[in-house]
C-alpha cells in the first residue's frame, strides 16, 4: 500500500512523522521544562521566599531588639514606634511563613518561634516598662541581660533553626529541581535520539525509495527526453520541409489564383461568345428555315421543270413521229426522184431535162433527208438532254429532298446547337460563377496557406525551441540523475 503512495504523500508522511516526533520532543521538552520551571519556581517561590522570610524574621527580631535598646538607652519614644513596627512586621512575616510552609517540622518551628517571640516580647515589654518606670539604665541593663537576652538567644536559635531548615529544604528543592531537569534533559535527549534515528531511517528510506523510483522516472524522463529530442528534431526537420512545401504551395496557390482569374475571364468571354453564338444559332436557324422554304420552292419548281421536261420529251417524241413521216416522205421522194432519174436515163436524150429535174428533186430529198437526220439528231440530242435533264432533275429532286431532309436535320441540329449553346451559355455562366467562387476560395486558401506558412514558421521555431528544451531536459535529467545518485554515469 505504501509502495503505491506518491512522492508527495511519502514526503508528507515522513514530514508528518518528523513533525510528530518534533511535537513529541517539544511536548516532552515543554513538560520537562514546565517541571523544571515549577520545581525551580517552587525552590524560588517557596523555599527561597521562606528562607528570606526566615531571615526577615531574624531581621525583624534584630530591629525590634535594636529599637528596644535604643529606647532603653535613649528613652526616645520613636524607638518604641520602631519596635512596634518591627514587631508588627515580624508578626506579618510569621503569619506569611505559617501560610507558606508545607511540612509539619516547619510549622512546629514556626510555632516555636511564635512562642519564643511572645516570651521575648513579654520580657522586652517588662524591661521597657522598667525603663519607663524610671529605673536606671544599669538596672534596666541587668534586667535586659537577665531577662531579655536569654529570650533573645532562644528566639534567635529558633529562628536560626528555622533558617537552617529552610536552607536544607531549599538545598533539597534545588537538588530535586536539578534532578528533574536532568531527567527532562535525558528524556528530551532520548526522544531526540529516537527522532534522529527515525528521521535518519525515514531519510534513508525516502532516499532509497526516491533514488529507486526517481531514478526509474529519471531514466524514463531521459528516454522520453531523448525520444522527445529525436521527435523534436524530426519535427523541426519536418517543419522546415513543411515550411518549404508550404512556400511552394503558396507559390502554386498564387499561380492557381492567377489561373483561376484567367479562367474566370475566359469563362466570361466564353459566356459572351456563347451568347453571340446562340444569337448566331437563332439567326442560322431562321436562315435554315428560310432556306428550307426556298428548298421547298425549288422542289416545287423542280417538279414543274420535270413536268415541263417530260412534256418537252413527249413533244420531242411527237416531233420525232412527225419527223419519221417527213423522213419517210423524204425517202419516198428520194426514191421517186431516183426512179425518175432511172426513167429519164431510160428515155435517152429526151429524158435529160427530166433527169435534171429529177436530180434536183433527189437533191432536195437528200437535203430533206439530211435535214431530217440533223433534226433527228437534234431531237435525239434534245431528248437525250431532256432525259438527262429529267434524270438530273430527278437526281436534283432527290438531292433537293435529301437536302431538304439534311436541312431539316441541319435545322434540328441548329435547334440542338441553339439549345446546346444555351446550355453552354448557362454552363459558361456557371463556370464563370464557379470560377469566381473558386477564385474567392483560392484567395481564402491563399490567406489560409499564408496563415499556415506563418504557423509552420512558428511550428518550426517551436520545434527548435522544443528541441532545445528537450536537450535541456536531457541535461536536467542527467543532472537530476547525478543529484539522485552521485554514482550515476548517465
Amino acid at each position, binding site marked *: 500500500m505504501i509502495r503505491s503512495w506518491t512522492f508527495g504523500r511519502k514526503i508528507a508522511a515522513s514530514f508528518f512523522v518528523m513533525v510528530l516526533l518534533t511535537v513529541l520532543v517539544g511536548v516532552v521538552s515543554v513538560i520537562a521544562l514546565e517541571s523544571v520551571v515549577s520545581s525551580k519556581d517552587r525552590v524560588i517561590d517557596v523555599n527561597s521566599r521562606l528562607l528570606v522570610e526566615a531571615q526577615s524574621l531574624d531581621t525583624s527580631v534584630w530591629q525590634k531588639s535594636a529599637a528596644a535598646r535604643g529606647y532603653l538607652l535613649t528613652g526616645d519614644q520613636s524607638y518604641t514606634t520602631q519596635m512596634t513596627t518591627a514587631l508588627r512586621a515580624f508578626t506579618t512575616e510569621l503569619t506569611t511563613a505559617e501560610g507558606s510552609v508545607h511540612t509539619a517540622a516547619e510549622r512546629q518551628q514556626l510555632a516555636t518561634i511564635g512562642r519564643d517571640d511572645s516570651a521575648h516580647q513579654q520580657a522586652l515589654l517588662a524591661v521597657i516598662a522598667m525603663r519607663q518606670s524610671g529605673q536606671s539604665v544599669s538596672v534596666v541593663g541587668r534586667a535586659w541581660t537577665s531577662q531579655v537576652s536569654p529570650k533573645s538567644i532562644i528566639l534567635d536559635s529558633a529562628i536560626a533553626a528555622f533558617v537552617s531548615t529552610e536552607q536544607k529544604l531549599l538545598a533539597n528543592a534545588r537538588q530535586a529541581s536539578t534532578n528533574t531537569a536532568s531527567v527532562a534533559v535525558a528524556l528530551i535527549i532520548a526522544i531526540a535520539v529516537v527522532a534522529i534515528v527515525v528521521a535518519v531511517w525515514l531519510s534513508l528510506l525516502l532516499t532509497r525509495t526516491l533514488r529507486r523510483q526517481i531514478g526509474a522516472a529519471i531514466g524514463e524522463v531521459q528516454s522520453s527526453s531523448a525520444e522527445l529530442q529525436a521527435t523534436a528534431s524530426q519535427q523541426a526537420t519536418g517543419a522546415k520541409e513543411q515550411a518549404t512545401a508550404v512556400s511552394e504551395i503558396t507559390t502554386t496557390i498564387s499561380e492557381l489564383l492567377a489561373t483561376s482569374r484567367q479562367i474566370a475571364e475566359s469563362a466570361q468571354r466564353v459566356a459572351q461568345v456563347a451568347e453571340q453564338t446562340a444569337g448566331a444559332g437563332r439567326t442560322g436557324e431562321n436562315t435554315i428555315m428560310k432556306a428550307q422554304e426556298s428548298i421547298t420552292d425549288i422542289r416545287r419548281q423542280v417538279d414543274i421543270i420535270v413536268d415541263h421536261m417530260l412534256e418537252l420529251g413527249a413533244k420531242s417524241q411527237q416531233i420525232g413521229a412527225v419527223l419519221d413521216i417527213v423522213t419517210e416522205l423524204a425517202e419516198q421522194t428520194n426514191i421517186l426522184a*431516183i426512179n425518175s432519174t*432511172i426513167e429519164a436515163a431510160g428515155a435517152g436524150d429526151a429524158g435529160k431535162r427530166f433527169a435534171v429535174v429529177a*436530180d434536183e428533186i433527189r437533191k432536195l430529198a437528200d437535203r430533206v433527208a439530211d435535214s431530217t437526220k440533223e433534226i433527228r439528231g437534234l431531237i435525239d440530242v434534245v431528248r437525250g438532254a431532256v432525259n438527262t435533264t429529267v434524270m438530273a432533275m430527278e437526281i436534283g429532286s432527290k438531292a433537293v429532298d435529301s437536302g431538304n431532309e439534311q436541312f431539316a436535320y441541319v435545322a434540328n441540329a441548329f435547334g440542338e446547337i441553339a439549345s446546346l449553346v444555351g446550355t453552354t451559355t448557362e454552363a459558361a455562366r456557371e463556370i464563370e460563377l464557379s470560377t469566381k467562387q473558386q477564385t474567392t476560395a483560392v484567395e481564402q486558401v491563399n490567406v489560409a496557406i499564408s496563415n499556415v506558412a506563418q504557423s509552420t514558421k512558428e511550428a518550426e521555431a517551436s520545434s527548435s525551441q522544443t528541441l532545445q528544451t528537450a536537450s535541456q531536459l536531457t541535461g536536467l535529467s542527467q543532472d537530476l540523475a547525478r543529484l539522485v545518485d552521485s554514482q550515476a554515469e548517465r
Partner: protein
Amino acid sequence: MTSMSGSSIDGAAAMRHAFDASFAEAPDLTSDVFENLLAIRVGLNPYALRIEEVSGLYVDTLVVSLPGAPPALLGIAGFRSAIVAVYDLGVLLGGRGGETCRWLALAASESTIGFAFNEFEGLLRVPVDSIAVETGTHLTSGTSRQIVNFDAATRSIVRLADLVEAIKTPATVVRRSDDR
C-alpha cells in the same frame, strides 16, 4: 439555239438558192462525161449499180417467200400488176445472206427479176474516168470487174445484166460467187 436556227435558216436559203439556180442555169448536157451510179451496201461491203441497168428502186416492198426456192431467191413481189422474182444480192455475190433486205432494185434487162439488198446509200454522179476495169489472177480466167473510186472510197460495180444471165444459168452464178 440561235446559231442552230441561224444555220438552219442559212441552210434553207442555200437550198432555195441552189434549187432556184438549178432552173436558172443552163441545162448540163455533159452527161457523157458523167455516169449515174446507185451506191448500195450489201452486208458490210459497198457496191454500185449502174442506173441504166436498173428499171426501178423500191423500199420495204412485201416479198412473199416461195417454198423450196433456192437460197438466193427470197420470194416474189408485185409491181404494177407484174410479178417479180426477188433475189438476195448478197447471196448472188457469194455471201451467206440472211440479212434484212429493205431495198429492191429491178433489173432493166429483165423486168421480172429484182435484187434485194440491205442498204441504199444514195445516187452517185461520178466521172466516167473514175471507173476502172480490174483484172487479176485472183479473178476467174477471162473475167474482169469494174470499180469506181469516189470520195476516197472504192466500190465494185455490180453488173446486173450478168447477174440476170447468171440467174438464168445457176451454174454461172455459182462461178461468179467463186470469183469473189
